[in-house]
């Protein structure tokens, strides 16, 4: 009987240990700085994996969004901007890669800055 108890305790301990091992604390976070000179209202990451919005005021020039957890490590970024005649959607092209898509490192906390809006 004691043997069974010991085996049960060992198995239970193993399950708990394995469970702790499986917990992933590698949260990937992303934040944005608006350095474009114009307000940016909404930012959408990877088809809606994460969104940033700041009420009706948007993110003013030089404002930083809060850092948010993302699940997708690869995706494109779109943002909404008031162009006067109404709100339009723009694609963010990353200067270093010249691409509309970007890859994040798993578990990293990355910050991107939007430096210009054209036209």
């Amino acid at each position: 009987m004691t043997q069974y108890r010991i085996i049960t305790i060992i198995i239970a301990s193993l399950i708990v240990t394995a469970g702790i091992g499986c917990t992933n604390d590698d949260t990937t976070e992303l934040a944005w700085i608006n350095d474009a000179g114009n307000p940016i209202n909404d930012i959408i990451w990877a088809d809606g994996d994460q969104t940033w919005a700041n009420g009706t005021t948007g993110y003013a020039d030089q404002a930083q969004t809060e850092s948010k957890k993302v699940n997708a490590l690869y995706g494109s970024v779109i943002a909404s901007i008031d162009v006067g005649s109404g709100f339009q959607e723009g694609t963010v092209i990353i200067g270093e890669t010249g691409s509309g898509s970007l890859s994040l490192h798993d578990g990293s906390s990355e910050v991107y800055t939007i430096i210009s809006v054209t036209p």
Partner: protein
Amino acid sequence: MKQYQTIVLVLTVCLIGIGTTLLQASDFIWQQISGNWSVVTDNKESYLKENRSKAFNFDYSPLINCNTIISTNSAIVFTTVTHTLTLDAPQGTATYLTFFNASDYRQFYAVQFTGNDSCITTISIIQSDIKDTTLPKQAKGNFIITTLASSDVHLAYGQPYTLAITINNTSIAVLVDNKQVLSHTLNEKLEGGSIGFASKNCIPIIDNCKVYNGSTIVFEDDFSKESIRKIILKGKKLTPQEIEVQKKKQNK
């Protein structure tokens, strides 16, 4: 004498420069509001296509909630708008609009196609308007869409149709392949505005867009060249050092 020659030369160069700038500015006859529209040219022909299908509910206007392009000419008065249309790759509820008389992104009329996974099931004439004019334009969801007329249809995906929208005073008619499918009498005479195309949950292919006022063509595009202006935001990844500097700035 040499001075005059130099002045004439400088003026000529300036005029050429201004002319080129104006020509470049007028190259864009469409403005992309949302989505990923492009002119596609294959071996046989060229056409307009929206490539993303999925649209995002920014909710500032019905047009930004779809994938939309709008004419840069904002004063198109017409009696007939016609173009070919193929809808492809439906996902869930597919929606397509040819809109006209748009004074802004929330005020317009449109002919709307809606469909399920297997076929296009409804054609409607709709009107979009601002819900509460006292609210700022940043207010989300501040628009109202009214269905003015609607008809059940059974149109196939992947097949080209010719859509024609005709206006005669206040009467509006919708024709598909020269057959009238819908008509309605509006409460107002249309005074003109922008035209455009919008879609979500499907891939529209559009070609041979012609807009007539009487027998005169007032606007046309055969989509033989790229003529879409798009907003581009340039971004840059911050280095760990730059992130630290930014953190210090924020904490000040």
